[in-house]
């Protein structure tokens, strides 16, 4: 039995352990919002888009370099450095606090471009480190999908509050002051993230086992789909930003674009657990590919700010749902690959796809509707390939790799964290029994539940 304030706290920041990461991510979301709002006062909105395009492309290309280097190195580094991820996260906050202060003095100079892209690299490094740390903290405690959804949900709420504060600060003072405030929030983030430093890294799994799990067709497919979605988000953000700039649209429209993506991510984090109860992970991913394809087609055919924002919002929802589906798939089908080093490698790959697609958007210089329709076509192709692969894979019927007693014990651990000790004891004891069903389906499960209910009715022994 749990009290209401405790339940609300768990809903917001999760059980101890995960809570530290959730709070860190909320502060990160707030700081990033301050940074985004401050950009409205930057020189980027005073120079012509065509003149800015080569410089943006140059620094986006430079953004690729650290990810190309990091991709193969990050995984082994994560496993070798005890508490390294916590230090890495703290480091990204400290670097961004410094960069925000430097940017505050250079919002109207050419230094804006290198500083803003250094910011981007650091922010993406944070994402890699955070996602690598998440399975370590969630392991044995809680469902990875719930952890991931909660992180996104709580951070969006923190960002919304920060957006109001940052906008007030921007309209009453200026962009430089907003960046100075962002710097303070980043310092606060570094202090909060400091508590993550002692996080132990789980022991290295047998490499062959991890490789075998990652090479399963279903897992490979889901990874490719997620990579495509991340690329689509990167492409859209830059393509639409340059389109809006070319039309001399006010800075708030680009703010609305970022907000639509964030809101979409929030809605996705709420919808993902519901979707997971109703459909398989692969169907979730297929839907997450088709929905933005449809919406971007609509935006391409009836191009205006509203349809563009809707397309970006749907992409945000889809990215969030697909990510949760991928987490769930790893949890079910690749338990040994569900670890920090593998997640670091995965996230680096996703960020690389985002940056490459963003480069393509800046370099392509096509009309807005052409870019949007091309994106829709790309998503449709990826969705068809994904659905076709799944149709083939269904023949193989992958079985869960964790045994039933192991799954029962994992669930008991979660209940223990939730302080539901009686349920945890019952499940742990059940895991010790040897009376497990040889096969299970929905009808047999329902029958067993009803039989148990019947036996508990008053008057029955």
């Amino acid at each position, binding site marked *: 039995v749990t009290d209401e304030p405790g339940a609300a706290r768990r809903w917001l920041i999760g059980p101890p352990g995960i809570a530290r990461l959730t709070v860190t991510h909320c502060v990160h979301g707030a700081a990033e919002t301050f940074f985004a709002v401050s950009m409205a006062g930057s*020189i980027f*909105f*005073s*120079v*012509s*888009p*065509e*003149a*800015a395009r*080569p*410089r943006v492309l*140059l*620094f986006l*290309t*430079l953004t*690729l*370099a*650290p990810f*190309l*280097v990091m*991709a*193969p190195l990050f995984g082994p580094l994560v496993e070798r450095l005890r508490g390294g991820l916590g230090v890495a996260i703290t480091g990204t906050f400290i670097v961004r606090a410094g960069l925000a202060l430097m940017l505050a003095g250079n919002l*109207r*100079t*050419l230094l804006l471009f*290198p500083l803003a892209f250094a910011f981007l690299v650091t922010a993406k490094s944070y994402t890699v480190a955070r996602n690598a740390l998440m399975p370590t903290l969630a392991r044995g405690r809680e469902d990875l999908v719930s952890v991931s959804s909660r992180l996104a949900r709580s951070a969006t709420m923190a960002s919304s509050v920060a957006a109001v504060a940052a906008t007030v600060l921007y309209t009453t003072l200026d962009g430089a002051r907003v960046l100075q405030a962002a710097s303070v929030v980043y310092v606060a983030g570094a202090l909060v993230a400091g508590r993550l430093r002692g996080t132990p890294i789980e022991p290295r799994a047998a490499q062959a086992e991890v490789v075998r799990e990652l090479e399963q067709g279903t897992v490979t497919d889901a990874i490719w789909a997620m990579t495509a979605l991340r690329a689509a988000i990167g492409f859209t953000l830059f393509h639409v930003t340059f389109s809006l700039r*070319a*039309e*001399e649209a006010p800075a708030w429209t680009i703010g609305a674009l970022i907000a639509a993506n964030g809101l979409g991510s929030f809605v996705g984090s709420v919808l993902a657990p519901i979707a997971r109860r109703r459909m398989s992970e692969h169907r979730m991913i297929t839907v997450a590919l088709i929905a933005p394809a449809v919406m971007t087609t609509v935006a391409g055919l009836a191009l205006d700010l509203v349809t563009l924002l809707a397309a970006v919002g749907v992409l945000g929802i889809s990215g969030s749902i697909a990510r949760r589906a991928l987490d769930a798939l790893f949890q079910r089908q690749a338990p040994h690959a569900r670890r920090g080093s593998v997640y670091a490698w995965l996230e680096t790959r996703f960020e690389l796809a985002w940056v490459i697609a963003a480069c393509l958007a800046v370099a392509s210089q096509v009309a807005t509707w052409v870019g949007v329709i091309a994106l829709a076509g790309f998503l449709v192709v990826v969705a068809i390939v994904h659905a076709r692969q799944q149709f083939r894979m269904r023949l193989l019927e992958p079985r869960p790799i964790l045994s039933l007693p192991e799954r029962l014990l994992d669930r008991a651990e979660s209940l223990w964290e939730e302080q539901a000790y009686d349920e945890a004891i019952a499940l742990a004891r059940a895991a010790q029994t040897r009376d497990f069903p040889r096969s299970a389906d929905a009808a047999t499960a329902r029958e067993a539940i009803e039989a148990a209910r019947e036996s508990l009715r008053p008057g029955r022994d």
Partner: protein
Amino acid sequence: MGCRRLRAALAFGALTLGLLACTARSEPGAVTADAYVAALSEFLPDAAVANEDPPIVYVVPIGDGALDLDTQVAVIDALAERWDVHFVDDAQAAIKADDDDDDDAEPRGETYVLGIGTIKAVPPHTVRIEQYTDASRSQAHRVTLVEHNGTWRIDSVAMVEPEVLVGDG
């Protein structure tokens, strides 16, 4: 191994590109941003007074395309105290037009739209500047600049035939 080498080569290439971009310098004797500031200053509206927002001035390229980014930033910075200068690629972005056929569309509310060409690199340093009163009407000038000890100033301004900004081109 091959993949690692490819990654290293790509990363090295990206860094080299960055270093080259960061160390790039304009050619000696090139027309500087000061020349554009001098040319534009003659046509700017009244500057902002204390506690007032500076007037917004849109600058549209004429002819060879937009000024390079460094020049644009330097011009904006030089005039920032009294004018809020925005460089735009497309005149449509600066001039409010209800539809493409509306030749009487006027520049946005309290804003000014100036067109500027590229200053000739060799003397006489001339540049075409246009002041747009609406989508189809403008006053065009040929401005001649002179440079003395790195300082640019206007030598002469002559009225010339305007070009149509929006519409039939």
